[in-house]
């Protein structure tokens, strides 16, 4: 297959970037998007040019490192897939493909398609610790959990922290991510003592990092590779409102 690529090139956070045209041929439809960029980079290196910097790690959809905004979509056109799990057969031969980095004030570009997503780490860090009893490992049945809640907590815990929700959101809000992280604990008895502080601290850090505000548009849910649900955002709102009322 053959593609015309328009790729965002940017030296560093302080230099403005621009789209640069590349064309690439002999691409196998079963290659992942990242493998296609690998081939392009190989060509660039051979031509003595600077290869395109991009984030990646596991290449199996579980680490959340890969992050490309492809043809106006976070992680590209395929539903519920990360960029590394997006295959070139999802495109038509001869397609023009736009590739840009996540764009948000809280995710400054480091180089080309690589952004600094440490804002997410700061939010997680603000979430703090979770109290558990130490000593002998507990018997599995000691702490009964409603099956439906356990399932929902697991679903929320599927978030890989990739930031596609922020990238897709017209307001660059991080609510889907934060709500997933809040929900995975709020639904379980573990971490109950820290519940209110956690909600307040994480939301405050989210605002401090310069993410936008949720207006319930739903682009995050549509683009999330792990299909995190908007229900979680309602839960976050609930947790936050309750915590604001209760906390001293």
């Amino acid at each position, binding site marked *: 297959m053959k593609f015309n690529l328009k790729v965002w090139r940017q030296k560093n956070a302080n230099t403005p970037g621009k789209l640069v045209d590349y064309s690439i041929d002999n691409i196998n439809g079963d290659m992942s998007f990242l493998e296609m960029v690998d081939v392009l980079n190989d060509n660039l*290196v051979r031509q003595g040019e600077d290869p395109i910097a991009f984030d990646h790690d596991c290449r199996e959809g579980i680490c959340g490192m890969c992050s490309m905004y492809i043809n106006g979509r976070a992680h590209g056109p395929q539903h519920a897939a990360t960029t590394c799990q997006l295959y070139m057969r999802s495109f038509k031969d001869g397609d023009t493909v736009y590739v840009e980095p996540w764009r948000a004030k809280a995710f400054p570009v480091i180089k080309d398609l690589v952004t600094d997503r440490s804002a997410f780490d700061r939010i997680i860090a603000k979430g703090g610790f979770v109290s558990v009893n130490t000593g002998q490992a507990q018997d599995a049945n000691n702490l009964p959990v409603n099956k439906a809640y356990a399932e929902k907590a697991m679903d929320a815990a599927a978030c890989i922290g990739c930031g596609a929700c922020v990238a897709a959101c017209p307001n660059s809000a991080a609510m889907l991510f934060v709500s997933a992280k809040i929900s995975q604990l709020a639904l379980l008895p573990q971490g109950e003592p820290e519940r209110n502080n956690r909600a307040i601290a994480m939301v405050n850090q989210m605002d401090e990092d310069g993410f936008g505000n949720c207006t319930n548009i739903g682009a995050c849910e549509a683009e999330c590779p792990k299909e995190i649900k908007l229900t979680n955002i309602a839960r976050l709102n609930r947790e936050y409102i309750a915590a604001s009322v209760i906390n001293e």
Partner: protein
Amino acid sequence: MWEYCGMARTEEGLTKALDLLKDLRESFWKEVRVPGSVSEFNPELDKAGRVADFIELGELMVIDALNRNESCGGHFRVEYQDNGEAKRDDDNYRYAAAWEFKGVDAEPALHKEELVYENIKLQVRSYK
């Protein structure tokens, strides 16, 4: 590495591998070209660093495989076998090896960590 320090190793192959690795290391450090510049984020430099690590790791494996004159587990020295079965030499090689780097052209120093078995008796493992 696959050819000379793979499933089955011989003294001859390992010695050859050591020579090849020396050449490889030399040509790597002489001819490597890392795109990008020092003043910016450079994933290519990261990759080059990994290649350098792999060369060192390969060399370490070859040195240890050459030193260990027995067959044991995944280390099968063709010279040391009983009709295709690995032949261990517990008297001389019952240790975990740690090699100390002494410089690029210097011989590395071997440090042995003796393996002491208190509860089991060493036996020949047989799958027959």
